[in-house]
């Protein structure tokens, strides 16, 4: 849940850090961290991440703030997809459709009901995407593997087409553009618009990530993994398999929808081309790249999502490539990265980091204990 900050101090949270100076050491600190109840542990991690985001935005330029915020909403979308695929074992190729629903809901609310406060707008976008997830989850509950993937792929193809079909209402290929309030007037001297936006995005994302972390470490996460691994044994244990699968769909749709809503808030537009099939496929690719079965994996995936595009563009510039080639370079990079990683390290970036962490720890507790925050207990 914490941010990209990997220094031990920030990951463990400031108050814990102070305690460390007084007594014990990193090892004892790690011990205390692990015995903390789950909720405070996740809240502390989220607070630490928020502080890290605020600190980061204070030293970066507006472009970097925007990228940081993009990492935030992509992380949310990828984490939601991770719940669906990594936990409940349902492979969806249509996650972008829920981002589409969230983004267009937010856009329509801003345009038609401008008096709604932002939080209510976002909450409504979540409710609408959850409903969509419920419907699709119920319809798909009996589909497995490639059939489910095919059905959700159809969803990813169909959704953006809606914008063209109902172009009066949804704006056609140009989508919807609108105005969003930026930094509140009282703070406008100190906080730039992009800083404020990054904070709003990350605050929202971190709140939801706390929910997801709770979910994945508790009974619901266990039910989902049981359903993923063996439906018969799960049912015989008393788990309502279909209900758990639908729940996973609803949770994942809600996350996707909120991510789309935040994207709309950030870009002040919702266009169909943003949510093309390529988005859904990229989300799946970076999820695997980051590592399934852990929220940290979603962070690495989100960073890849934002920066592979960046690097692709700069590489194309540096090589002065034709625009047709340049546009497809990020996809090529994804492909190469994914193939290389799946061949060498199927558990993704998070898998590599966990193994490194375990290796370091077993070599005599050399003081990095506090970084092993919540993902250590994950399945897979």
């Amino acid at each position, binding site marked *: 849940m914490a941010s990209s900050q990997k220094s031990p101090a920030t990951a463990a949270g400031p108050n814990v850090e102070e305690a460390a100076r007084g007594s014990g050491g990193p090892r004892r600190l790690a011990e205390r961290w692990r015995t903390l109840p*789950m909720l405070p542990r996740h809240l502390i991690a989220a607070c630490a991440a928020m502080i890290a985001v605020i600190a980061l935005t204070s030293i970066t330029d507006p472009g970097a703030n925007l990228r940081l915020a993009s990492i935030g909403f992509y992380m949310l979308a990828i984490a939601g997809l991770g719940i669906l695929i990594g936990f409940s074992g349902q492979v969806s190729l249509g996650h972008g459709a829920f981002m589409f629903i969230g983004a267009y809901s937010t856009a329509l609310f801003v345009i038609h009901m401008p008096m709604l406060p932002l939080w209510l707008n976002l909450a409504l976008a979540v409710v609408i995407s959850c409903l969509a997830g419920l419907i699709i989850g119920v319809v798909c509950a009996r589909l497995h593997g490639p059939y489910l993937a095919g059905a959700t792929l159809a969803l990813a193809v169909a959704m953006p087409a809606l914008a063209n079909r109902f172009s009066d209402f949804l704006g056609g290929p140009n989508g919807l553009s609108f105005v969003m309030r930026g930094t509140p007037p009282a703070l406008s001297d100190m906080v730039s618009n992009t800083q404020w936006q990054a904070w709003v995005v990350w605050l929202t994302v971190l709140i939801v990530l706390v929910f997801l972390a709770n979910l994945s470490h508790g009974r*619901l996460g*266990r039910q989902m993994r049981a359903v993923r*691994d*063996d439906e*018969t044994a799960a049912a015989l244990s008393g788990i309502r398999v279909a209900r758990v699968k639908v729940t996973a769909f609803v949770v994942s749709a809600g996350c996707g929808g909120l991510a789309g809503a935040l994207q709309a808030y950030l870009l002040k537009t919702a266009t169909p081309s943003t949510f093309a099939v390529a988005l859904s496929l990229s989300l799946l690719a970076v999820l695997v790249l980051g590592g399934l079965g852990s929220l940290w994996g979603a962070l690495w995936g989100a960073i890849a999502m934002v920066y592979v595009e960046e690097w692709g563009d700069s590489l194309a510039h540096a090589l002065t490539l034709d625009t047709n080639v340049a546009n497809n370079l990020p996809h090529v990079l994804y492909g190469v990265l994914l193939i290389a990683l799946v061949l060498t390290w199927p558990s993704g970036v998070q898998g590599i980091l966990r193994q490194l962490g375990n290796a370091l720890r077993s070599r005599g507790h050399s003081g990095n204990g506090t970084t092993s925050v919540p993902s250590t207990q994950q399945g897979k």
Partner: protein
Amino acid sequence: MTPSLTDHLLTADGVTVRFGGLVALKDVHITVPPGSVVGLIGPNGAGKTTLFNVLSGLITPDTGTISSKGHRLSGLRPYHLANHGISRTLQGLNLFPGMTVLDNVMTGGERLAKTGLFTMLTGLGRFERDERALRGRAMAVLDELGIAHVAGAYPSTLAYGVQKRVALARALVNEPELLMLDEPAGGLSSEELAELATRIRDLRERMSVLLIEHHMDLVMDVCDHIVVLNFGAVISEGPPDVVRNDPAVTAAYLGSAEESDDE
């Protein structure tokens, strides 16, 4: 000594199952009284596992009823079973490969978990208390079976005999009144077999057991009552001594031995 039928933990009455033209079960009656160990035996393909699947809601019978403690379980689904205080192990173990042994066993304790969706998302309220209680119970069961030391391991890293005990632990953590075991002795060493016999006798103090087993010594040793299936029909039943000396049983086993002798 003989409890009334309404106390019986699980009763199948007149159960018939057809797979296409094949009659897998033919008007089968079986019942498990409280505090008893009932054995279900028969040659391969006799319909033992099919009957287990009917009793646990995995297969809906064409005719016949399933009841528990005098209540008819119509529309029985597998996830209802746990709520009736019935646990079942599967012949293929079906452990959750992506979960640790502890998580496997905790999943078996679903019946005892009460947390709702709100609690599971927010981690508030009874979340922590319930998780700790369930983890404690799961560890206690693992300890009872002598495998607490593998709680953090993944099933595929364990020996087969240990995996079987994990599957048993997953069924026991629910504190069932009836435990259904599908070939608990299959693939075990002779030491493990002796241990299993002792364990089943111990479990009998706390619950009833219904088991499918090919290992005759074990069945004759631990069962109070034995039901013999052949070609989907009950051909004999009674206490071990009666069944052992029933010519129909001998004929069924010898007859089938000529055709298939896998186990």
